[in-house]
């Protein structure tokens, strides 16, 4: 039972397609930014993407090697825990499946790590089978630093903090190690449709 706020009507958006805006979210046409610290600027010749994990042979791609991998266009809705949702965003990225192709592992979780020390944790099944990418372009342009460029994780079915900006690699793990926001009050999994924003949601 929700409490009715006297005199509140709200501004419903008629163009909000049914079933595409999770509870507590509103649509925006902007692309707001949320970061905990300064934007890192790693030169491309010093950039690499690494997959590590106990008992596995680490894999590493330079920027050129990474960009030579098969990539694909992705059009998805994204949902930020700060309440905005944005529909039909267009990206280009390398599927995490492609990155994991040559790696033998039986990990249950990944901890994505980024420039600036940011980390975020995800179950392995949430980044495989076509559910996650390492994206390097947005709207047909190279991904801007403030939005996570040169490359960010893209996991659109979870709140957008899981789509780690400035991503530099994945650590394959057996345990679900809390990442940065997950250690600071935010939900371990972050399903927008179940409104899993904070601890205990």
């Amino acid at each position, binding site marked *: 039972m*929700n*409490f*009715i*706020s*006297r*005199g*509140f*009507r*709200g*501004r*419903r958006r008629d163009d909000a397609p049914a079933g595409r805006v999770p*509870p*507590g*979210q*509103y649509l*925006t046409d*902007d692309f*707001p*930014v*949320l*970061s*905990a*610290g*300064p*934007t*890192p600027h790693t030169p491309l010749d010093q950039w690499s993407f690494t997959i590590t994990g106990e008992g596995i042979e680490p894999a590493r791609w330079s920027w050129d090697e990474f960009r030579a991998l098969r990539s694909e266009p992705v059009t998805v809705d994204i949902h930020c825990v*700060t*309440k*905005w949702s944005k529909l039909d965003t267009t990206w280009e990225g390398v599927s995490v499946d492609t990155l994991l192709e040559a790696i033998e592992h039986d990990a249950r979780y990944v901890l994505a790590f980024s420039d*600036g*020390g940011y980390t975020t944790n995800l179950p392995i099944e949430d980044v495989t089978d076509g559910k996650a990418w390492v994206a390097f372009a947005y709207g047909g342009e190279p991904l801007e630093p*403030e939005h996570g460029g040169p490359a960010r994780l893209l996991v659109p079915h979870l709140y957008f903090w899981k789509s780690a900006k400035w991503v530099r690699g994945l650590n394959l793990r057996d345990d679900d190690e*809390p990442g*940065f*926001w997950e*250690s*600071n*009050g935010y939900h*371990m999994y972050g399903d927008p449709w179940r409104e899993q*924003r*904070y*601890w*205990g*949601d």
Partner: protein
Amino acid sequence: MARAAVLGRLTWQLAEVVDTTDETATVRTLFLDVPAWPGHLAGQHVDVRLTADDGYQAERSYSIATPPGEAPAITVQRLEDGEVSPYLVDEVRPGDRFELRGPIGGYFVWDYSQGGPLLLVAGGSGIVPLMSMLRHRAASSDPVPTRLVYSARTLEDVIYRDEVMALARESEGVQLVLTLTRSTPPGWSGHTGRVGADLLRETDWPEEQRPLSYVCGPTSFVEAVASGLVALGHAPERIRTERFGGA
């Protein structure tokens, strides 16, 4: 999850507006009575949920303005294109209630045990969580040296103006650097224009006393200030940012 058990579930509860203060022509503070308020840290925010009589709901986040130990108050700026902020600024009156949960956020927070010096950089309504930190600092027995760099469009847009001015005058250790970006009153001798590299350099501490920095405001403001501090040699991990966006 052990941490969740410690913090407890953030359940929605009813907050009652007990008082309001108009801070500027577009900004209002709502003082709230939240019966089961667990206390908060300086810099945290709350989620507010409004429900229309047909069940339509809208949620937004607002920073807490009051210091730890006091009941929560939120300071809200009416956004031209806003959905929730016009209601909170123009419509709500004492006695009204709405749903709220919090406090939220464990990173953009400051407790005086974290020490200083403290550099607080605010753009517009980005002052709100920093004001909670300033109030918390003022209540400590040994306040750390603090600088507040505050960018507002005009003097009339300075939120908490009297209190900020008084803090800078009376409380030893707070240095206020106010810059006005749009227009200045006659005889204004303070800073003008956006916070840029020069102003940051001018207001910086010597390298061996580098502060813990909190930067809050619109995205472009935060980007410029945080990058500027990094360019001056501040360690990125000593710069905490919070960006305001959306309606």
